[in-house]
């Protein structure tokens, strides 16, 4: 006879038979909650960064019947990349913008002093241009809306304009900036350039004296630059932690080059900027390592609508064109891409694979695929926003792609 166990069973075991609810008096529960909240001053809470996998819902046991959901059924998002290409010598610099995907379905990527084009429809690569050391590195690439012309910014402050279809350089914009041009954004025939000098210049690429306006406001390098879909507002983010909204509708001459809004809430460099495709005047911005938040802004009033802490350096942001979702790319330590539901900011997926901060993001013209590049010298493709095969089926006729290159090179 085990007296100890018997004693315990007699005294403590009794508690099991009491109905559970009587054990939680409201005052005690309140006190506990209060203590919990107060304790936070002497406590830190940690969560493990790599979250446990979710159970595969497709094969869930019959006990848990999937409730019919009012919304569309959740699509399966592959959390690994579809494809990874080599991107050697890619510069791991937070302030550059070395990747863009044009409307003709060609990806342009700048690797040190060369720019390569990857035709996504055919999977073929070609080298567009390589410059010598005098020019320095390529610091930004951006496709014009026609998907044919490409603007490339350089370390020596010049901007080259190329016709990717005929592989010819059309012109070089000089005399504007005095240091490297790290960010570019097109608005029809206006190419907006952002420099390390903190200046933003609007260049009309059709005319000789191409500089038609200068926006002054940033005191440090302009690393994020995006025009809104309507082309009326420009958002710029800088190393000075500021975001500026510039509005073309400002008619009076004096105010024409003054910012409409200056947002100071971020506490680190802002390079991630993305205009919402389904809601006008809504901008998402992401802060660097000292900030780690994604903030949402009403660009008419300049008000901050929401702020979500992502616990990682935010390097890039992309909105889904088909769903109310936002994709963010991160640096230390997960180097992941995170998909969020908007506006709840609930994490829907985390895409892993990169082994260094995912600085460069671009979206395919059909909206399904995201290309990401990082200092780990890989260019990865993720079908995070949708299935390209499905999207192709939905479209009536396939896009006619011009085959600009006769030779096929691999990115080395």
């Amino acid at each position, binding site marked *: 006879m085990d007296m100890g166990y018997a*004693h315990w069973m007699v005294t403590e075991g009794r508690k099991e038979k009491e109905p559970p609810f009587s054990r939680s008096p409201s005052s005690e529960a309140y006190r506990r909650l209060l203590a919990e909240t107060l304790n936070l001053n002497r406590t830190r809470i940690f969560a*493990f960064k790599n979250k446990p996998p*979710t159970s595969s819902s497709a094969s*869930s046991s019959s006990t848990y019947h999937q409730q019919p959901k009012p919304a569309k059924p959740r699509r399966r998002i592959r959390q690994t990349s579809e494809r990874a290409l080599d991107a050697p010598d890619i510069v791991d610099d937070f302030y550059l913008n070395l990747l863009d995907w044009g409307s003709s379905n060609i990806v342009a990527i700048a690797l040190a002093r060369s720019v390569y084009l990857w035709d996504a429809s055919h999977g073929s690569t070609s080298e567009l241009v390589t410059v010598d050391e005098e020019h320095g590195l390529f610091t930004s690439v951006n496709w014009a809306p026609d998907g044919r012309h490409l603007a490339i910014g350089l370390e020596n402050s010049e901007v080259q304009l190329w016709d990717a279809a005929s592989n010819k350089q059309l012109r070089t914009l000089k005399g504007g900036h005095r240091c490297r041009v790290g960010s570019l954004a097109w608005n029809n025939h206006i190419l907006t350039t952002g420099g390390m000098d903190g200046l933003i210049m609007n260049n009309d690429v059709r005319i000789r004296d191409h500089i038609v306006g200068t926006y002054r406001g940033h005191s440090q390098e302009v690393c994020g630059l995006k025009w809104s879909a309507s082309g009326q507002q420009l958002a710029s983010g800088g190393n000075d932690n500021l975001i500026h909204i510039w509005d073309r509708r400002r008619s009076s001459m004096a105010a024409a080059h003054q910012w409409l809004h200056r947002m100071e809430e971020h506490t680190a460099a802002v390079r991630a900027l993305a205009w919402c495709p389904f809601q006008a005047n809504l901008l998402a911005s992401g802060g660097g390592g000292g900030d780690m938040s994604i903030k949402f802004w009403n660009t008419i009033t300049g008000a901050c609508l929401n702020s979500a802490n992502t616990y990682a350096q935010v390097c890039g942001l992309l909105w889904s064109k088909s769903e109310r979702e936002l994709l963010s790319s991160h640096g230390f330590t997960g180097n992941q891409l995170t998909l969020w539901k908007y506006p709840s900011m609930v994490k829907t997926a985390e895409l892993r694979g990169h082994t260094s901060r995912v600085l460069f993001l671009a979206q395919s013209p059909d909206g399904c695929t995201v290309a990401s590049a990082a200092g780990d010298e890989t260019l990865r493709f993720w079908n995070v926003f949708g299935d390209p095969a499905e999207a192709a089926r939905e479209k009536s006729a396939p896009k006619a792609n011009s085959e600009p290159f006769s030779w096929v090179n691999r990115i080395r």
Partner: protein
Amino acid sequence: MASKTAAKDIITLRGSAAIVSEFFGYAANSILYNRAVYPEESFARVKKYGLPMLLTKDEGVKSFISNLNAQLSEWLEAGKLQRVVLVIMSMNTGEVLERWNFSIETDNEVVEKGVSREKSDKEIMREIQAIMRQIASSITYLPCLDEQCVFDVLAYTDTDVAVPFTWMESSDAKLIANPQMVKLHSFDTKIHKVNTLVSYKNDEEESDDEE
């Protein structure tokens, strides 16, 4: 506590930390099984604490829990761990449905002076066994989780810990508003005392007064 005629075993700080983190691993598995966070067939039966216990076969979950336990052991040995919370959330809405709260009281003298304590291993096992039984029987009163759920683990520590490489600091304690709470048994290694509490979302149909 009744005195034991059997010989007491020496418990060191390290041993106690191992017992507590091992307990947490099994408790987490048991919760995941019983609350159907993962399907039944993904668990395998093993014998532990004199009971048939279930452990997940899923590599991802296994490695999550073992990485967790490694860090918990470290914090326990330093006497810095205050509590561990296993949170169960709806996969679709992210709403917190249940919180399994394991709070830890540490005998600081042991941490500071490196002494050891004495307690019968069997006694500790029995205490843990009682808690495991309670977890298994909790499905009788916890509300049905009839949507796909995911879990996460939060660790509450003292303020003077360095942020470990693979952990992130969270200001979100993932609390449940107006929870129902049930206190389960505790166990005590004489160095660490672990109190278990489950709080869950108030089922609207319950007319019970919280008196």
